[in-house]
């Protein structure tokens, strides 16, 4: 409708709305009928003359290109989807285009499963997720035959896209303990009985279990920790019937409660009792995350409703297998492929109350939009939206209108079960959408709702977890269980893998997809819902776009492929990658390798020690602006290669006693004072793991070069990336003091070697490349950090510098032990070294053209800066480094400062944004954005930001000495009331520091001149009425006219009757007029272009623009231009104009 919420409605409009409502009811029925009649549409394809019919093939091909061209930030001309200017309208059109494949719209279910003969055909599928449960043993399966046993469930998909649930039987968890001296196999029975009895006595849940300890055997093992000259020794391997008995068993063993007739009562040290069951199972069956599983013919049995046991899931194939009867294929060659996984992306809209964050016990869910796509395909094949109340049809999409909220929730839940996704995605679904739906359903009593997993009759449950990781910090997270489906929340992925200024869907889309997204404020959503079926349609299109964008982000960033490769490389289930930290990945690899070498892992008691060790060193930077090429020499994979070169490992760590038995040639002393045996005595396990990772990476990189298929290319790239990350995380694992198996001797030695090598590199370079040795200049190492050194060879030409640097890298490499390798990679020219870890330079790898501008540690990513700082610093750096125009950079900085002080900066450039995460009382100290939110709530509770919202504010002029938090104000309020900004605050608190940091190395003390001088003196007082933020007077125009008029040219007071110029300046009236008119023209032009753009972007020219996306660069501009135009209109209007 034309004006449904803001402008007062005319009677006609209202009548029309009513009419629409009535019409559409009827229409909706027809629409549904039509949907059902839909035949495989050949309509558009059959008309060759249609200029813009996009056949499926075309569209697919286009997207493929996009995929391969990822990373380029440019708009892609031609690609319809990438056209940002008319994105939303394009989105509606796009939905239409998708819809040409009519037959699939209603076909939500998976392709039918072909009947298979389990005695003749092998069963092959890609597993995605696993869990375990307790049940009575299945006859004919290995393992305990009585009581409840541990059974594993593997969920996955076949090559044909059918869902699979495989029950794996017979696997028992186990722990190790060193066999006591004089222990003989004959004692095994007694030991088993004693342990079994002890556990039953101490554990109530074990009382009725027929046999807690399944079996005990003697195996030859060795502890992973420390070098033992004695080698392997006998260990007892104790199999338990259920995982939960591991801890009672450990207690029984450790506390010395086991008495053997010949050995007496001993206490036993326990190994590997703290490893997770799922991982233990995967390691023992050689499963890695997302690999392919093959069950040979005759080794499995399908479940059916006529057999026992009956199927428990909605999977198309459900089968039973013994744990030792299937083949787990490593993800290599043909097994690198990915099954046609179904990815569901959804988004919900709630009708919140004004000014309050939606709460599930009060606010209804009104729409749920869904997109289902098969991984590797270019567009979603299911597009629908469930709405509360009627909704006008949307081309190419199915609208499912529900009468009640319960119906909405339950039919959505039924839809999820029917389309049966393998991966569930969306934006912030884990912490918002899913919990909200769960709680809402509970509140309303929608009993058929919480069955979102693949298991029949198993309710989804909502729980909370706290996740702590050194790398990611502490995050509280909610978990909604959906057995068999992996949640992959795009927000969580982005928060983990990318450092961004803002993580709202709008700004993320702008960043990665280069397109703006309409953002409708949540207070308007309720109005749209309460309108008619057209306003609800509008909301539905908006909601569907929010469901579609996460899919596009996933495919643009190739998340599914990369995460899958990471799961395969590290061997952990896919779901762990988002829910767990780095350590679990290393543990998984450690367990796999340790098992192969008969090593067992001790249980490390968490001491939470704060023991610190010295980190990487930096060579003091010689700050400055370097106008000659600076070569960068990097140690490739420094820490892994140190560990390999020096054979640093748990298994090679020498205790003083062990050392006394060895010849000094057999071991080394690290710079940290620890001792490790050399390679020739024993090769360490960690070096082995690292070697296999790095050589696998080399292979992947080589394959990547050869590969031409874009999809396989992305798989290989994901693989080599995963391998690199996991190689680097091994070092961190040994240093994690709260980890499973910290060993500071290793991590401290690694960093100590690193420091030594950086220093040594400096020595080698400086002592060789100098005038004394016949070189033209003395080389100087101007900076060194962790794994790289920056060398100024003093040569002016890039080509010569590269040649010398290459030679130097080889020369220094020759001084170190393999596989340590110093590489020459790049030259910075010019180079601006600001401080430790803060520098900028133009990055060259070839002599012809620079690659990019590289900035490290500069303000560009910091979120509490206003965009002006970022723009200014980036532009200055651009001028300094790329244009090499120092004067230009200075002029630009001066112009910016001048414009700032004259209030000529677009307000969007001055907006600072912070998320309101807690209520005011919970914050320590006063904060600008919190105070503002409070004040806005007093003004208008409806539009004020609520918990979780991001608050945008600017700093306004206040009483002298007032703290900044009192001077924060809503940018829109500032625009509307012409409030003066505190330009001094912006100059001194925002611009000064970063400006000085880049200009001081160049200008020295002269840099201060940027902050004073002619350009800072001119301060224009804009007409302003409301000086403070709580004054009621609105509308500056009124006050403007009341003020005494001054001559626009010489500022003399004007006598009555004159409005613009004094009699002396009157002769130049045309000059003054045209000057003002030019300004007005510029504003008019801006007004027209900005508002036309918003009209296009929202996909309708007849509806008012509702978008309030604070991430859109033109949001404030278009508001400000209205204001400025009104002012300038007044100014120009004062020139009397009768012909």
């Amino acid at each position, binding site marked *: 409708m034309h004006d449904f919420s803001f402008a007062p409605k005319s009677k006609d409009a209202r009548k029309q709305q009513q009419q629409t409502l009535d*019409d559409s009811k009827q229409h909706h029925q027809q629409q549904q009928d039509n949907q059902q009649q839909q035949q495989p549409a050949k309509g*558009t394809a059959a*008309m060759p*003359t*249609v*200029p*813009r019919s996009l056949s499926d093939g075309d569209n697919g091909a286009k997207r493929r290109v996009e995929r391969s061209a990822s990373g380029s*930030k440019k*708009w892609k*001309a*031609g690609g319809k989807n990438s*056209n*940002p*200017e*008319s994105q939303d*309208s394009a989105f509606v*059109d796009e939905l*239409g285009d998708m*819809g040409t494949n*009519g037959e699939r719209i209603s076909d939500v279910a998976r392709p039918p499963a072909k009947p298979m003969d389990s005695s003749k055909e092998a069963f092959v599928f890609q597993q995605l997720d696993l869990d375990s449960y307790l049940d009575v043993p299945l006859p004919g399966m290995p393992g305990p035959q009585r009581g409840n046993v541990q059974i594993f469930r593997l969920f996955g998909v076949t090559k044909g896209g059918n869902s699979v649930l495989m029950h794996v039987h017979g696997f028992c968890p186990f722990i190790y303990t060193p066999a006591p001296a004089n222990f003989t196999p004959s004692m095994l029975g007694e030991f088993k009985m004693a342990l079994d009895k002890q556990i039953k006595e101490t554990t109530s849940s074990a009382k009725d279990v027929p046999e807690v300890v399944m079996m005990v055997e003697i195996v030859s093992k060795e502890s992973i920790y420390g070098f033992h000259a004695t080698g392997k020794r006998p260990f007892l391997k104790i199999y338990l019937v259920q995982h939960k008995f591991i801890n009672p068993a450990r207690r029984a063993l450790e506390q010395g409660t086991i008495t053997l007739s010949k050995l007496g009562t001993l206490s036993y040290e326990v190994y590997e009792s703290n490893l997770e069951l799922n991982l233990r199972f995967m390691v023992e069956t050689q499963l890695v995350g997302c690999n392919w599983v093959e069950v040979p013919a005759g080794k499995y049995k399908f479940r059916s409703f006529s057999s026992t046991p009956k199927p428990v899931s909605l999977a198309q194939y459900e089968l039973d297998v013994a744990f030792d009867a299937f083949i787990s294929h490593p993800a290599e060659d043909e097994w690198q492929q990915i099954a046609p996984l179904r990815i569901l992306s959804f988004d919900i809209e709630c009708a919140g109350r004004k000014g309050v964050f939606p709460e599930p016990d009060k606010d209804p869910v009104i729409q749920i939009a869904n997109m289902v796509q098969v991984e590797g395909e270019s567009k979603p094949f299911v597009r629908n939206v469930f709405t509360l109340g009627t909704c*006008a049809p949307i*081309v190419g999409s199915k609208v499912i209108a529900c009468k009640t909220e319960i119906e909405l929730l339950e039919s959505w839940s039924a839809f999820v079960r029917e389309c049966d996704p393998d991966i569930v995605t969306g934006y912030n679904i884990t912490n918002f959408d899913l919990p909200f739906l769960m709680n809402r359903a509970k509140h309303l009593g929608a009993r058929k709702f919480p069955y979102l997993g693949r298991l029949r009759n198993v309710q989804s449950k909502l729980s909370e977890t706290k996740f702590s990781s050194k790398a990611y910090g502490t995050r509280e997270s909610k978990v909604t269980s959906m057995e068999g489906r992996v949640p992959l929340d795009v927000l969580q992925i982005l928060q983990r893998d990318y450092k961004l200024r803002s993580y709202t869907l709008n700004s993320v889309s702008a960043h990665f997809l280069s397109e703006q997204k309409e953002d409708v404020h949540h207070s308007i959503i309720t109005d749209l819902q309460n309108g008619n079926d*057209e306003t609800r349609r509008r909301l539905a299109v908006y909601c569907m776009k929010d469901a579609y964008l996460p899919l596009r982000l996933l495919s643009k960033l190739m998340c599914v492929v990369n995460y899958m490769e990471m799961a395969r490389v590290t061997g952990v289930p896919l779901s762990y990658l988002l829910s767990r930290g780095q350590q679990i990945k290393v543990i998984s690899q450690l367990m796999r390798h340790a098992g192969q070498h008969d090593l067992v892992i001790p249980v490390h008691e968490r001491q939470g020690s704060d023991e610190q060790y010295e980190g990487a060193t930096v060579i003091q930077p010689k700050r400055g602006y370097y106008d000659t090429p600076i070569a960068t020499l990097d140690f490739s994979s420094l820490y892994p290669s140190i560990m390999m070169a020096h054979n640093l490992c748990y298994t090679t760590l020498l205790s003083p006693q062990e050392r006394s038995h060895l010849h000094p040639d057999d071991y080394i002393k690290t710079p940290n004072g620890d001792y490790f045996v050399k390679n020739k005595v024993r090769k360490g396990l960690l070096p082995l793991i690292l070697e296999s990772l790095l050589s696998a990476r080399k292979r992947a990189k080589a394959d990547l070069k050869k590969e031409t298929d874009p999809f396989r290319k992305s798989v290989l790239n994901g693989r080599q990336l995963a391998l690199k990350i996991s190689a680097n995380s091994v070092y961190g694992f040994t240093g994690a003091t709260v980890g499973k198996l910290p060993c500071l001797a290793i991590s401290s030695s690694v960093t100590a070697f690193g420091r030594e090598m950086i220093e040594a590199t400096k020595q080698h370079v400086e002592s060789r490349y100098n005038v004394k040795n016949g070189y033209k200049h003395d080389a100087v190492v101007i900076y060194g950090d962790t794994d790289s050194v920056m060398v100024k060879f003093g040569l002016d030409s890039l080509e010569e510098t590269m040649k010398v640097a290459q030679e130097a890298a080889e020369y220094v490499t020759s001084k170190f032990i393999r596989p340590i390798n110093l590489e020459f990679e790049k030259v910075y020219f010019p180079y601006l070294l600001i401080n430790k870890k803060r520098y900028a330079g133009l990055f060259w790898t070839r002599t012809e053209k620079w690659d990019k501008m590289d900035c490290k540690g500069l303000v560009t990513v910091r979120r509490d800066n206003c965009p002006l700082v970022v*723009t200014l610093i980036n532009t200055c750096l*651009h001028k300094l480094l790329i244009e090499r125009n120092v004067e230009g950079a200075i002029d630009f900085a*001066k*112009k910016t400062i*001048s414009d700032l002080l*004259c209030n000529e900066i677009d307000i969007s450039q001055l907006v600072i944004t912070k998320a309101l995460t807690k209520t005011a009382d919970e914050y320590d100290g006063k904060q600008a954005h919190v105070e503002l939110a409070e004040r806005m709530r007093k003004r208008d509770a409806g539009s004020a930001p609520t918990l979780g919202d991001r608050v945008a504010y600017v700093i306004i002029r206040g009483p002298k000495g007032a703290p900044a938090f009192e001077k924060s104000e809503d940018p829109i309020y500032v625009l509307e009331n012409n409030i003066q900004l505190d330009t001094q605050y912006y100059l001194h608190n925002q611009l000064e520091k970063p400006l000085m940091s880049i200009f001081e190395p160049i200008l020295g003390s002269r840099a201060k001149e940027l902050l004073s001088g002619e350009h800072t003196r*001119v301060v224009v007082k804009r007409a302003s009425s409301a000086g403070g933020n709580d004054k009621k007077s609105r509308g500056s125009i009124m006050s403007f006219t009341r003020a005494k008029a001054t001559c626009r040219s010489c500022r003399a007071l004007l006598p009555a009757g004159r409005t613009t110029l004094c009699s002396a300046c009157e002769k130049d*009236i*045309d000059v003054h*007029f*045209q*000057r003002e*008119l*030019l300004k007005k*023209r510029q504003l008019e*032009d801006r*007004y*027209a272009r*900005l*508002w*036309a*753009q918003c*009209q*296009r972007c929202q996909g*309708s*020219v*007849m*509806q*008012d*623009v509702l978008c309030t996306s604070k991430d859109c660069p*033109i949001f404030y501009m278009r508001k400000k231009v*209205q204001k400025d*135009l009104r002012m300038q209109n007044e100014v120009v*209007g004062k*020139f009397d*104009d009768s*012909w």
Partner: protein
Amino acid sequence: MDVMSAPEARYVRDDAPEQPPRVTRSAAGIKVERNKQFIVPSSHDFDRQYAHVYFTRYNSFKKLIETAATNKWPSKHVVPKLLDIEKEKECVVFGVLYKDMPLKPNILDEYHARENYEAPPPERSKYNSDEDALVLEDMSGRIVLIGDALDVGTHVSGVVVAVLGKALPSGEFQIADVCYPRFPPQKRLPKIPPSYVCLVSGLNISKNDKARLSMQLLSDFIQGNIGSTADQELAASIVHVIVAGNLVWRLDDEHQDLPLYKKRTMIPESVGHMREVDLFLAQMGINVRVDLMPGPHDPSDAILPQQPMHPCMFPLARNVSSVKGETNPYETTVAGRTFLGTSGQGVDDIYRFSTEEDRLRILEQTLEWAQLFPTAPDTLGCFPYHMTDFSDPFVITSCPHVYFAGNQPSFATKLVTGPEGQQVRLVCVPSFSDTHTAVLLNLATLECEPIQFDAP
């Protein structure tokens, strides 16, 4: 009387008559009525959005288009709202066209390019591409139009049409035929003796240029100061001069990058040129009425309708009572002949966003569409007008006798005949600075000829 093919009247100044006799204006009694319809109310409000412009336009055309459609397809079912279209059923729907164009310039692209230090998207003479698509919109929704009956290339955003066709299962609308609003009615022409209106545009006064001499010739000619006796008699029968925009060459943007403290004292380059124009107009307007329309280059509004240029820039001409500042677009009646014209922005803008190369044809199209500036506000700036302050000013509600567009690359003219016998003289008035050509239009016959002023 098809295309006007009068031999080109080439005027070369010869030094023959030392003292050309002054002539008396033969048609001085002819009445020129000024039309005020394009004045923007002083209360206009930039707080409004452009949605209202389309809404107003839609409402202004609703009746017209419905009538036209029922006349054209009497037996077809007219669906008043797009929302109510039933799939696979033939019907007539109407609404505003919107053309999706991937290459359409976009302020966000420019912003993005600036942020990334990339070159802004290139300016093009044409922005159409194979991926352009038309959608039809009314208050209830949008629908994608497909089919050959409506050429995507030559249609532009903002045009109001009715289409006959049916919705496909995919949701697109397959067009069989198209219909424009009813051709507006025209007033009858009263008979008068031969007299002329002179149309000139695009003086484009700039630093360089020998067009100044040609301008002087034009001025001398109109005042009857030069030429043969026949020329002078011709000049004497000119009753009215319309200057259709672009007095000066481009308002300079070169000061845009200056910091404000320097900008405050700069003198716009156009000031000197406007002073020159003032003198020229004051001379020329001594004994003939001159109506002055602003053009895109002139110191007037940047958005449409452009308001009369401010008299303070014409200290001399404002004292000559026969020189008047007018709006662009502009409508006037001379001896009962209605002149409707623009300074050419509408034609230029459509040219950029359409595949049509023929500007005269574009001018004709705007008459068929009954809209002066269909592409405003999408790609052409306009005031955010609204039903309540003035109903769509750009709708052509009555058929003019002369319909012109200024500042075109070359002279072109054509007489078109409407369905009810309306006869309209279309004129592309060439840019004077490039062609040194003005246009003389005979009010009695509506014939029109170019007249070129070349300095030797």
